[in-house]
């Protein structure tokens, strides 16, 4: 079995209610989005290492080359920086590339093109060109992914103007946000999480777009506000649901996109709860948690009833072995414990 497939298969999520609509896996939802976008607009193309191979980016690109031909869905050389520039150039000249990576770690090779070119072109050109580029990657975790295959890089990129950052948590969002990303005229980073790839959910057929900058309540509550995205939010939601039995009523907000950030939904919730827990899949220091925690101190200070807390990764590289990973990654138990502390229980 390739790599962490067994592990991802073994994860258990709440089953969706099939009465609410068609149930689809997360990877299939992204696959459907790509397929619709390719069908809808001849300018869209998909590239990345192995997008046309049998494993097909965790299944996300399965069947696309057969359906849309090798001109529009094609393998890429191992040249992350070069290909990021090539996709940027193609985007500046009428194409809408989707550039896919197995891991966000590989995007670090392309920071010059991403940060200093793609993100800035439209501004530097005074609006003459646009860069409708989607950069996709799946955050790794577990099974020895280790320090070089597990990095969440949204915390490095949040500070960069010109970029948008998308981190879906559900199959519904994964599809709708991907369709929005491809339709967007700016460079958009879509970070999925390996552990969500087989999660199932209700996903409408056909085109729909989930707007950027609009968070969503995953749980309503009054005792504290938990905000985050992707797998970190999923874990927090599980913790929050469990804690209801202990009389803790948490509000859980899925931000969906980190840039643009839905400040309003956080502000509204904080006004009610006065307590903020920020969660992220990346390092807690200096990243997404820091930005949102700082916003609270800056803009919503008057609502705060107690210190802000953040749950991300410790300031340590990711270890490889599961024997160390268990101490490294926050889990539902640790998130629960933090919530209890925040609520004085």
């Amino acid at each position, binding site marked *: 079995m390739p790599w962490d497939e067994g592990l991802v298969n073994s994860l258990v999520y709440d089953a969706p209610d099939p009465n609410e609509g068609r149930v689809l896996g997360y990877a299939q939802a992204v696959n459907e989005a790509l397929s619709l976008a390719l069908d809808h607009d001849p300018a869209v193309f998909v590239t990345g290492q192995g997008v046309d191979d049998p494993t097909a980016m965790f299944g996300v690109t399965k069947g696309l080359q057969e359906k849309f031909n090798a001109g529009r869905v094609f393998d890429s050389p191992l040249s992350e920086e*070069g290909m990021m520039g090539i996709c940027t150039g193609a985007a500046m000249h009428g194409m809408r590339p989707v550039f896919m990576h197995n891991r966000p770690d590989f995007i670090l090779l392309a920071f010059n093109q991403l940060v200093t070119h793609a993100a800035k072109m439209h501004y530097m050109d005074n609006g003459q060109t646009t860069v409708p580029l989607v950069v996709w990657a799946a955050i790794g975790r577990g099974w020895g992914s280790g320090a070089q295959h597990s990095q969440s890089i949204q915390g490095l990129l949040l500070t960069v103007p010109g970029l948008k950052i998308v981190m879906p948590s559900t199959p519904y969002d994964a599809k709708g946000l991907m369709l929005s990303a491809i339709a967007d005229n700016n460079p958009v980073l879509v970070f999925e999480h390996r552990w969500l790839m087989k999660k199932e959910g209700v996903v409408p057929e056909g085109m729909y777009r989930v707007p950027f900058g609009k968070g969503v309540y995953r749980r309503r509550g009054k005792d504290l506000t938990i905000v985050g995205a992707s797998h970190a939010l999923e874990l927090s939601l599980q913790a929050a649901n469990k804690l209801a039995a202990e009389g803790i009523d948490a509000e859980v907000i899925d931000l969906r996109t980190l840039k643009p950030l839905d400040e309003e939904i956080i502000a509204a919730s904080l006004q009610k709860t006065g307590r903020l827990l920020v969660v992220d899949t990346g390092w807690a220091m200096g990243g997404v948690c820091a930005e949102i925690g700082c916003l609270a101190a800056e803009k919503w200070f008057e609502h705060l009833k107690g210190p802000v807390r953040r749950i991300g990764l410790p300031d340590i590289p990711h270890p490889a072995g599961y024997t160390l990973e268990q101490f490294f990654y926050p889990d539902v138990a640790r998130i629960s414990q933090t919530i209890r502390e925040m609520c004085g229980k």
Partner: protein
Amino acid sequence: MIRYPYQGTSFDDWQHKLSSYAPEFLLKLFRDMLRIRIIEEEVERRYFQDHMKTPIHLVIGQEATSVGACAAMTRADLLYASHRTHGNYLAKGGDLKAMLCEFHCRINGCTGSRGGSMHLMDKSVGMAGSSAIVAGVVPIATGAALAAQMHGESYVTTVFLGDAATEEGAVSEALNFAALKQLPIVYFCENNFYSVQSPLVTRQPKRELYKWAAGYGMASELVDGTNVLAVYETMQTAVARAKRGEGPTFIESPVYRFRAHGGAGDDSKTGYRDIAEREAWEKVCPLETYFTFLKSAGLIDETVRNTMAGEIMAETMEAFDYALASPKPTEADLYTHVYAD
């Protein structure tokens, strides 16, 4: 010590080719080079007045490459430039006023004062862009060529790069991809032997650049960058190859910059290169050798040249006046185009 001697043969043995060109074309090449030279010298002269607060990288001495290359391209073809943009921009048909407004940080600069001299860009004439990051546009230009291929459009993309740019891994990655996909692109490498004040010898092993590029499985040529006609012909072949769908070409073109890497004046006296080296190359100045060549063929004389120079000077002065009188951006201008709609 002359570390990098001129190794070409200038216009020797080119006489017999003259008849295959229309005289107007030959004169236009001269005028285009002269125009760049005059504009650059005026930019240089005024640089110390401090109205142009932008880092400049003059192309004085390197006019033949821009002019020869652009003569082989149509307006629909795309040109990408490095930080050394001025010659590329003017040769591609860029708007002199828009360029000088950009140098003067005015709102009607070609990129509204956002890009400055290192980021000249004008979509309407196929000046596709430039980057202050060495080699930054090389992959981007390759992507433009990919777009042409995917759209089935016939434009060719040419990207200028310096000798030092070839040291960047991204260039290697771009060449690999262009050769793999047989993209309609020309990599035009101006080898002026220096990167800022660093000579090739401290940066690259002994080997010829155009042969290195051939290792990527693409056509690769060496052409004398002081000979505007040689540049033109080599580019023509490359552009035609691209238009026929036969893939990319790498062109190495030895040239010499007569001025400092950046700013006004020459800095050879600081010692990183021998003044004698510059002087030796000034003897094969692309403008003067071509003038002598045309003159010996009876196609031009000092009077014609002076008339041209006068016209160009008038145009230049008017453009400077225009730039100096142009409005500056307001605070509101800072906030537009951060994101596209």
